[in-house]
């Protein structure tokens, strides 16, 4: 968070609690009264922390504690004297940040401040001239100010913590991508390399054999390229171009691109007349292709893929029903997450791409599944205007 924003948020908080110039001057007037108590309060503050192993472990040595005592003194001086400006807010922010850095659990920030608050109140009560109303007002102002400080420390603590979490998650995602890419690229490279070896070293290689190996190299280079394309189109999806699209034609194209392997029948149950949908033809083709491929993958021992379409009002629904292995209930929520996969092949991007495309063309994906029985992927698409 930049400094300007830090201060703006502090001002918002001040407004929220109704912090005024009167508050500021009341706190400032109390300063000469508590000043003499300060060394004892600071000693008590660190003595208490030392009693708690969880909090104490963040201190490296005595010298560090001495340095911290100096900064606590500065902090209290600034608390009483102000001015409560940008510099003040940023200083509070830095305290929270520092706590995350040294690994101090933030409950200790609360506890330590509460102890200091009580100490300051006791000092003020002891030194205050006989004017109870004035004392209460001063205490109220001081408490409000400390609450604002605490809010600021909390704010920075949360921001810093989130920042670190995101960094960790980013690294984890890179690791996952690296593992997926490693597998998907090294396998085609393996074929290319071994074919090259054969072509260079084979003692007896017929012209047909040579042609076969060259075709293999070309095919596997294409495969490796497809992997890169899928990855980059997921990272930066192409823009959608909406038009009126025929679902039947789109399906036909997808089935031609991904012909079912042996043992799998595709049963098409499409009505003769279907309204056109508002979609991007190419990207809808990718959606259908992914769903057909997934259904086939789910039926390693063969089965039926039934593709059914129906329309009602503004929506057209295409169902892909397979008789495959099904999806475990605890996997169901994760299947559209990028890089989630239970398969030996592939990076786990298919359904992530599918659901990203669908949300861009205002479509929906509903998945129901039963382990051992099969799954239904229901795609809902908006019917094109003038076709309802």
């Amino acid at each position: 968070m930049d400094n300007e924003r830090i201060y703006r948020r502090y001002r918002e908080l001040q407004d929220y609690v109704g912090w005024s110039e009167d508050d500021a001057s009341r706190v400032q007037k109390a300063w000469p009264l508590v000043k003499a108590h300060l060394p004892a309060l600071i000693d008590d503050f660190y003595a208490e922390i030392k009693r708690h192993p969880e909090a104490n472990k963040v201190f490296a040595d005595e010298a560090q504690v001495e340095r911290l005592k100096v900064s606590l003194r500065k902090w209290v001086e600034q608390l009483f004297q102000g001015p409560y400006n940008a510099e003040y807010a940023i200083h509070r922010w830095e305290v929270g940040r520092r706590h995350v850095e040294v690994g101090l659990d933030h409950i200790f920030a609360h506890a330590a401040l509460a102890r200091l608050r009580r100490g300051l109140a006791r000092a003020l009560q002891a030194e205050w001239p006989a004017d109870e109303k004035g004392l209460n007002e001063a205490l109220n102002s001081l408490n409000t100010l400390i609450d604002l400080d605490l809010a600021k420390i909390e704010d920075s603590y949360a921001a810093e913590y989130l920042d670190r979490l995101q960094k960790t998650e980013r690294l984890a995602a890179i690791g996952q991508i690296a593992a997926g890419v490693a597998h998907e690229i090294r396998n085609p490279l393996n074929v290319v390399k071994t074919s090259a070896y054969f072509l260079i070293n084979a003692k007896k290689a017929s012209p047909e054999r040579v042609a076969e190996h060259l075709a293999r190299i070309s095919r596997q280079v294409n495969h490796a390229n497809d992997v890169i394309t899928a990855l980059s189109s997921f990272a930066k999806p192409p823009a959608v171009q909406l038009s009126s699209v025929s679902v039947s034609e789109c399906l036909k194209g997808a089935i031609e691109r991904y012909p079912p392997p042996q043992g799998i029948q595709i049963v098409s149950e499409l009505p003769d007349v279907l309204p056109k949908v508002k979609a991007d033809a190419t990207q809808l083709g990718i959606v259908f292709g992914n769903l057909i491929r997934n259904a086939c993958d789910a039926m390693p021992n063969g089965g039926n893929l039934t593709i059914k379409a129906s329309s009602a009002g503004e929506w057209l629904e295409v169902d892909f029903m397979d008789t495959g292995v099904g999806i475990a209930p605890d996997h169901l929520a994760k299947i559209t997450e990028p890089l989630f996969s239970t398969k030996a092949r592939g990076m786990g991007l298919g359904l992530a791409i599918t659901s990203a495309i669908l949300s861009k063309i205002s479509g929906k994906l509903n998945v129901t599944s039963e382990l051992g029985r099969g799954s239904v992927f229901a795609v809902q698409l908006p019917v094109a205007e003038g076709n309802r």
Partner: protein
Amino acid sequence: MNAANASGVHSILVVDDEVDACENLRDILSDLGYRVAIARSGAEAVEQVARCPYDIALLDLKMPGMDGVTVYRQIKRLRPETVAIVVSAFSGSELADRAVEEGAAQVVAKPVDVPQLLTTIEASLAQPLILVVDDDAEFCDNLWQILCKRGYRVALANSAEEARRQLATKSFNIVLIDLKLPDTKEGENIFRTVGEINPLARRILVTGFRDESVETIHRLVEQGVDAVCYKPIDVDNLLKTLGAR
């Protein structure tokens, strides 16, 4: 002296779900004179090993259905003398480590460095092939673990019948025979069978009965027994005996 199957040609089973990868290794290895078969899945590989023995199985790790480690475990149960060489796109992975723990000879990274793979194959085939004939399954298993780590290929036979079957299909460098199988006669018979079918194999007797079998042992030593080991086996001693030529 390499042990080969009866025909003298070494056999290799290539297991990978990627058909092109299988075909390439088949082309390369058959060009070099190996007998090569292909399996496109773990289940297919196990089936093929059950049907006939292979000297080496080249195993892909990440395959749909059954992973390479599981495949090796099942192959080991059928024919523990099969050498497993793992070929994987994740050579440093946990799964690869597990394959080595299970007794795989080597992990080769994809894309495969063929000359390195050929060296590994040749080195594996140069490992002495031992047949352990003993009806004590746990003893066999322990011996397998110890000898596998020391660079031996170990086949197991838990009966005289099984031993005869194995002797007919492979030439062994060493045969370890438990003399009581279940009676001394059977052990003696196996001892003679080895001499007939595999005359070059060293024959080592293992026995738990020192006193009762003294006579038999003397007789067999006269007929060419190489060494006698007494149960409980002193492993260091056994390794020394096996290593001595």
